[in-house]
């Protein structure tokens, strides 16, 4: 049994994914490694000792040879306590504390059976991207399909990397579902993720995919119910709910 201790994490780089989401590249000495889908607990401490903790999924895959870097991708919630600090205040060289990795269920590794269906709502794409990245790093052969629901083109995380993955044709397909506004010329009008899109861009139930569904609570409820209605075995549907609606 390994005790999860709080570790100092130093921000070494950061980049904006969208106007409201920032990827933090953290250096965490002696990082024990992680599986894609796991998360860390982040703890902030104010000068007077007041502390706040929140969970954030790890976005990066852990390199085979180890390493002390990990990435988190945080969406700013305007009225939030922790996320606006992480997106707008934390600067290069600053430290936060984290502990982990946490979670042994919402994880993919090469032993997970079957093809993989990833269903993301908004920032729920973060742990799913870690899975896509780990698959590439491990040169795993299981085919992946990602169905990623987002409000508008301005809300797309990991744009370049997803395009590369698409073009590379190495067994990862990504399909975007725009809920509020779509890019010019997009073949379908914006609207919520529905059974038709999951049937067309996911896997048929008899392919027995392992499904990972992540996003805000309401999104995960809807998407997981749709998958069950499409005949997927609930035992093969793993979910992670980020809170919020």
């Amino acid at each position, binding site marked *: *049994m*390994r*005790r*999860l201790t*709080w570790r*100092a994490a130093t921000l070494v780089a950061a980049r904006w994914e969208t106007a409201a989401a920032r990827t933090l590249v953290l250096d965490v000495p002696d990082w024990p490694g992680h599986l894609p889908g796991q998360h860390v*607990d982040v*703890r*902030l*401490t*104010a*000068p007077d*000792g*007041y*502390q*706040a*903790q*929140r*969970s954030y999924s790890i976005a990066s895959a852990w390199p085979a040879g180890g390493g002390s870097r990990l990435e988190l991708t945080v969406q700013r919630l305007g009225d939030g*306590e922790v996320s606006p*600090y992480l997106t707008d*205040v*934390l*600067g290069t060289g*600053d*430290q*936060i*504390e984290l502990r982990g990795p*946490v*979670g*042994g*269920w*919402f994880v993919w590794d090469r032993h997970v059976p079957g093809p993989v269906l990833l269903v993301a709502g908004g920032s729920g794409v973060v742990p799913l991207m870690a899975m896509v990245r780990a698959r590439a790093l491990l040169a795993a052969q299981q085919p992946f399909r990602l169905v990623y629901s987002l409000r508008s083109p301005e809300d797309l995380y990991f744009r370049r990397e997803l395009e590369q993955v698409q073009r590379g044709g190495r067994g990862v397909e990504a399909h975007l579902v725009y809920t509020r506004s779509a890019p010019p010329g997009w073949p379908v009008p914006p609207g919520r993720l529905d059974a038709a899109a999951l049937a067309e861009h996911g896997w048929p139930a008899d392919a027995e995919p392992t499904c990972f569904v992540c996003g805000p*609570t309401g999104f995960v*409820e809807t998407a*997981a*119910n749709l*998958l*069950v209605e499409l005949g997927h075995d*609930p*035992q093969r*549907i*793993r*979910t992670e*709910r980020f*809170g*919020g*609606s």
Partner: protein
Amino acid sequence: MATFSPGFGGRRRAARDDLPPGQYETHDFPVLSYGPTPHVPRDTWQFTLTDENGARRSWSWQELLDLPQEDITVDIHCVTKWSKFATSWRGVSLDVLLDDVETSADFAVAHSYGGYTTNLPLDDLLDGKAWIAHGYDGQDLEPEHGGPARLLVPHLYFWKSAKWVDGLRLTTTDEPGFWETNGYHAYGDPWREQRYWGD
């Protein structure tokens, strides 16, 4: 070691002394589950108590409702850091269900529709500490929150309050359940911040 987070002031929305360490207060009711929400019809719902020798006893939905009901107002604490104060529930005390059970078991494993399990010391289910809850805030308990019925064990982190509960199995040895085998603490006392293995 508390690393200083320059520029972090905090919002202190929950500077209450009845808030366990590391928690913050929420007024929503967030949902966390490892899979899809099972939708269990009341007319097929059953709750089965199995003792350490395998003897079983079951209650149907109507039989549950025919037992003495309690209204319970308690604070609840989720390991994902939110706490919710003064939540109100309706349900049956486990003291009632376990009343005439003779057992030498020290532990129980709660089982749920959908396959979820969680382990608890039997003592933590007795003496007015735990219920099978089927009402929330004056309404039937919604499926997302574990309806038709869930375990309610408010003095432990909320993953112990198994949603969609369909049974309790008494055991003489402690058998870790779903989250307990996936990195979370075997007991889960919020006041001692027992979140993960080794806490």
